[in-house]
């Protein structure tokens, strides 16, 4: 390599500078929530916490963990995420595999039928009426069935199968009398572990973060996913009374309400924060597979 020119050095400095500013702009809010969640609420509210936690206390977390609503939300979200994702992944992989087979008559019609729903839909009210007519309102089914498959994910999987499973492999297996389902289970799935991981992650995150369907389909608080409970605490300021029944004054209640918020943000994000570093490469891979077709 030739020695760096004057222009190159200037460019490098500016480049590092811009990206570092961007990095800090993304990082600081996350960091602040983390330190505020176990700092003394009075210090946080007075604006004395900037870089280092002040007056460390776990009072906020204690109150959150004692709150039954949060636990119900956690349990429900976990349930919806596990079963919803399982359903999603099974349907997506089987449908995508069938659609990837060139010898399947009518696959273009089915594909067109799926893709059209990406361009046009019935809208909120007709969708609500369908779920209502199926008597799914206010049941766990409303959290699982109306989002059983995503078109975009089918396209990703189909592209993956078409580009990684050679036709010769299928021909050879067929010659030996192997059925399609057997071929799918014994050959295709083992070759697609990265894809399956990507699908579990995409669907899993969307279930964990979903709140819209719960908002329109559920009335019963016992069925609420975590996101709806978070909304009540963070946005509608409806902190559960149990969390602060011992607080005597309004000021004390307000103080607690504010501290709890930082802790609640942490508690809600912790599963993702723990898993994210391990899963990052799969997410990126998923975007890449999707981009092939583009």
């Amino acid at each position, binding site marked *: 390599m030739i020695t760096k020119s004057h*222009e*190159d050095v200037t*460019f*490098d400095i500016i*480049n*590092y500078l*811009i*990206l570092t500013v*961007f990095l800090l*702009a993304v990082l600081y*809010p*996350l960091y*602040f*929530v983390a330190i505020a969640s176990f700092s003394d609420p009075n210090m946080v*509210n007075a*604006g004395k916490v900037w870089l280092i936690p002040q007056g460390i206390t776990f009072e906020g977390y204690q109150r959150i963990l004692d709150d039954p609503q949060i636990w119900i939300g956690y349990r429900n979200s976990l349930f919806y995420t596990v079963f919803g994702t399982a359903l999603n992944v099974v*349907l*997506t992989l*089987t*449908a995508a*595999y*069938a*659609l990837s087979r060139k010898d*399947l*008559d009518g696959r273009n019609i*089915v594909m067109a*039928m799926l893709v059209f*729903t990406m*361009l*046009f839909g*019935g*809208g*909120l*009210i*007709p*969708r609500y009426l*369908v779920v209502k007519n199926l008597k799914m309102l206010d049941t766990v089914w409303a959290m699982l*069935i109306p989002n*059983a*498959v995503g078109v975009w994910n089918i396209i990703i999987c189909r592209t993956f199968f078409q580009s990684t499973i050679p036709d010769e492999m299928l021909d050879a297996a067929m010659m030996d009398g192997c059925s*399609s*389902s057997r071929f*799918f289970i014994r050959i295709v799935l083992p070759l697609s572990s990265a894809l399956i991981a990507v699908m579990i992650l995409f669907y899993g995150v969307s279930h964990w973060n979903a*709140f*819209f369907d719960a908002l*329109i389909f559920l009335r019963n608080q016992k069925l609420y996913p975590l*996101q*709806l409970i*978070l*909304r009540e605490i*963070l*946005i509608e300021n409806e902190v559960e009374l149990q969390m602060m029944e011992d607080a005597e004054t309004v000021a004390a209640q307000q103080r607690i309400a504010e501290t709890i*918020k*930082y802790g609640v943000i942490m508690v809600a994000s912790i599963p993702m924060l723990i898993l*994210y*570093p391990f899963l*990052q490469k799969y*997410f990126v891979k998923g975007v*890449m597979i999707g*981009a092939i077709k583009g």
Partner: protein
Amino acid sequence: MRGVKEATLEIHFKKQYRLKRWKRMKGNYELYLFLLPTVVYFLIFHYGPMYGIQIAFKNFIAVEGIWGSPWVGIDHFQRFFNSFQFWTLLRNTLGLSVYGLAAGFPIPIILALLLNQLSSKKYKKIVQTVTYAPHFISTVVLVGTMFVFLSPRNGLVNHIIELFGGEPVFFMARPEWFQTLYVFSGIWQNAGWGTIIYLASLSGISPDLHEAAIMDGAGRIQRIWHIDLPGIMPTAVIILILNLGRIMGVGFEKAYLMQTALNLDSSEIIATYVYKVGLLNAQFSFSAAVGLFNAVVNLILLVSVNKIAKTIGETSLW
């Protein structure tokens, strides 16, 4: 004579072809079983609502059902177009979308070009890991964090403003702040994630091009401008088309969560209006009409933008 012979042959081949296809379809019955649940799901949950769209042209009465409710023609559409909210809703929806696109589209491209120039692979990795992370934060948590940070009395942002001697601002109650907060929180959350696709297409650019350019004495900025940027152009155009096609489809979730009684002037968009009028006030038919208007405009936009892209450049979605 020849004509008849050809015709019989044709019929014969057609028959044989049909027979072969039938045999092939029977042999593939398992694949059809694979498809069955998904097709049924789409028929019920996607084409079912499309059937239900007819209530936009009817007065929906629950006991009569979708089919039995009486037709009213385009009454609901007329009512919507003539309502005082129509222009506000349209302006808010389009404004939010265009602002989001103008600010949100170029930033990932610039970031990707800069990241691609980083000499330290380790630092690149750190920036990527950190800036991808917010993508996985839920909308509820994101908006909740905004409320906490922007609180007029206790929020971080107002503490900073006060530190510099400014007056605290109650951001979430100010209509003039709504769009900016919406757009920039979106950039904070997704700009890093948005670079992935551009970085992938940058890595596909042949290093020969860069070597040749260096030989010719091209500097870094020149190479970004003349090699990298044209290299990712097709990807950028596709993303732009996709975004333009969604310009009327501003998502419900974030706008609804960011709404307060005081910022409604700019935060009420078509999606939130449909939800409130339809589900909270139970005006099913009127709300379905508003939703249909939105969906049709969206579809027309997507198709025409794609057509324009096809005419101007070679890139298009289909």
